[in-house]
């Protein structure tokens, strides 16, 4: 394996990643939420907040917004919408856009919960099952 061959592989990979990302940006459904992070204190262990959702699909269809698999609201034949939602979150909560007919998950986002007094989780730094 020559160095030039290795460099060609790395460069090709980077190019593919960039290309795929660029294509995805233009064609993928988008779901955004604000705020994305809620900080809980030692005294109050739950976040009570108004979440502002905005989503956009590539084509009109029936769609539901789910909060950890629990339905928040559904729309019929819609390609974009905005929604304000009063939420009570205690742990990291995932919001997803799902087509109720096909069950396909089209986009997702999450609201992170951070503790002001203690860090309870961290990112894993190695790929799981990496012994071999």
């Amino acid at each position, binding site marked *: 394996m020559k160095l030039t061959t290795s460099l060609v592989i790395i460069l090709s990979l980077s190019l593919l990643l960039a290309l795929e990302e660029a294509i995805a940006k233009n064609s993928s459904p988008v779901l955004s939420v604000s705020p994305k992070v809620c900080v809980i204190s030692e005294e109050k262990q739950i976040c009570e907040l108004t979440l502002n959702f905005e989503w956009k699909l590539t084509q009109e269809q029936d769609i539901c917004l789910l909060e950890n698999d629990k339905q928040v609201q559904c729309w019929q034949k819609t390609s974009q919408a905005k929604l304000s939602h009063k939420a009570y979150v205690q742990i990291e909560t995932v919001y997803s856009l799902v087509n109720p007919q096909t069950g396909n998950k089209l986009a997702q986002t999450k609201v992170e919960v951070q503790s002001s007094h203690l860090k309870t989780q*961290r990112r894993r730094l190695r790929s*799981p099952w990496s012994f071999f």
Partner: protein
Amino acid sequence: MRYILIILFCSFSFAASAKKLKMEASKVELGQLHLGLGVGVGVAKNPLHGGDDFPLLLLPDIAYYDEHLYFDNGQLGYTFFDEKNHVVSFIAEFNPEKRFFVFWNPSNVFLKNTIAFIENPEEVIGDDTVKSVDSNDVAKRRWALDSGINYQYFHENFIARINVLTDISNIHNGWRAGVELEYHFNIGNFIVQPIVGIWHKTAELNNYYYGLSQRDNVGITYKLDGVWQPYAHLQLTYPLSQNKAVLLKLSYDDYSDTSASPLFKYDYAVNIFMGLKYIF
């Protein structure tokens, strides 16, 4: 080499049809032991003459993270910088080259000639005139403890890692540096995780494990230079429940730069495992 391209091709074919979701780095609870066990069938192929293939029937996944200190699948680390996209840690781990010199199977001693006879000669590198040396016949290669720096960049679509490690156990006295990219996407219910990367390993490291000198007492000497070693791994997971999933794991490590050593039978090392994984 061709296998790296195949894994890359498969991964990016999958990626083209994948639903675009932001990549979530997997998280672990602080102060809790994370234990997973894969049960299935697989093999870790040994590229050396006389080396034992290692049957993969059980695949462990062991991790323990504290706020700074961690142990993850054989790597001990201390994270001293952890911000939104960047993490930097001191790390230590045993040099994995030694695994090819561990003789797992006692029957190897008795079946060695039979195995050599039935192996497919087309897949053996080099030609018949080059003398090959059995890895059982050379001086003992020892486990080396390598230590260094690990940097990780968490992008929303991928993770990039850079490792620089040097021998701190005075075994091979060399060093290695590598860069890798991990990607993560979903196809239906499948979670697809391809990893590609490349190591540079110095002549000292290569000569300790794969060179031949007077200490080996095999009648020939062989010296290697620094080498480049690309690799590609692919992991497919099909979740069955919160803590159970079907797991397929493929890995290909290219040893083309090293395989001119008489110890090598193949110029690559392949691992494959398929089974059920259970997270405790």
